[in-house]
């Protein structure tokens, strides 16, 4: 009954820990402003850019956009970098694959691309509303928060997973179904 351990997530994860440390030190030294890994604030800024084009006055008067400042900053470029890095890595190792409906979703909801798109879109609305309310996502609260032993990180990550587990059981059914 020997199973081979897949070291991949451990090694890649540990390297992210190194990257986070190097990034914290380098941004402190070079920029004079310490940058921790995070992602969800960029969605506020991206939404702000789009809204600004349509209703500049409305955006100017909004206190949340004023607080988060609509600009291309370190984290915005980090997100752009994630796209480039993931694209390059997936092409180099041949794991790039076009996918419209993932298997677990198909098993439960069928082949409809529109239904999967609607699920991703509506789930995204709720998740980001929650992430902004909690002031962070699994990167900002989960990774950076726990690396700093921040109390908010432990609370938020616990709620992310706790609610995620309950919702997944409800939406996709419990365990079972072999894949």
């Amino acid at each position, binding site marked *: 009954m020997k*199973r081979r351990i897949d070291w*991949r*997530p451990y090694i*890649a*994860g540990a*390297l*992210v*820990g190194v990257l986070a440390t190097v990034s914290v*030190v380098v941004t402190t*030294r*070079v920029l004079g402003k310490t*940058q*921790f890994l995070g*992602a969800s604030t960029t969605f*506020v800024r*991206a*939404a702000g850019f*789009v809204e600004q084009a349509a209703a500049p006055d409305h955006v100017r008067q909004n*206190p949340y956009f004023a*607080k988060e400042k609509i600009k291309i900053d370190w984290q915005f470029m*980090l*997100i*752009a970098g*994630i796209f480039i*890095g*993931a*694209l390059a890595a997936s092409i180099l190792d041949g794991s790039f694959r076009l*996918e419209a409906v*993932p298997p677990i979703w198909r098993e439960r909801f069928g082949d409809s691309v529109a239904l*999967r798109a609607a699920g*991703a*879109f*509506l789930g*995204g*609305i*709720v*998740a*980001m*509303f*929650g992430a902004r*309310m909690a*002031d962070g996502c*699994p*990167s900002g*609260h989960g990774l950076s*928060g726990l*690396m*700093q*032993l*921040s*109390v*908010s990180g432990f*609370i*938020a990550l616990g*709620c*992310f997973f*706790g609610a995620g*587990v309950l919702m997944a059981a409800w*939406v*996709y059914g419990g365990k079972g179904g072999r894949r």
Partner: protein
Amino acid sequence: MSEHWLGLITGIAFGALLQQGRVLRFEKQVAAMRLEDMTILKFMMSAILVGMVGIHAAVALDLAALSPKATQLGANVLGGILFGLGWAVMGFCPGTSVGAVAEGRWHALFAVLGMMVGAALYAEAYPRLEKTLLAWGNLGKITLPGVLGLSPWAVIPAVAAVFLLCFVFFEKQGL
């Protein structure tokens, strides 16, 4: 080097590692929430383990300062729960959604668009939440060592031990 270049280079490395850890995928994220495959947790906990030691060492050497997010019980809990509910259906988190699109899983594009709408809606709700929900249980920027009155170097080994036990458990259970 400018702020933008530093962010971009860090992001490229982060994206490549997320991709190589196989954590960008809907399947892996939902399987973790179904408690069937803990790839996501192995990845996150490994990152936290190394980053926790590295960042506290950098602070001890006066190379950086901590910047923890404020603990706001009401907002952390309610926002955290809302995030989890949406996360299970979306199957991506904010950072991984963009990487998932890059990997060819283009349904993540709708997740990205949904999250932009969610962020815009939150900006509209913010003025009403600022003095209510966000003010409830606001304990400031507290850390675990601070609350316990301990040095971080007393807390780090305890957290590391719990994580390592989790890893052993995951591998024993074939998760």
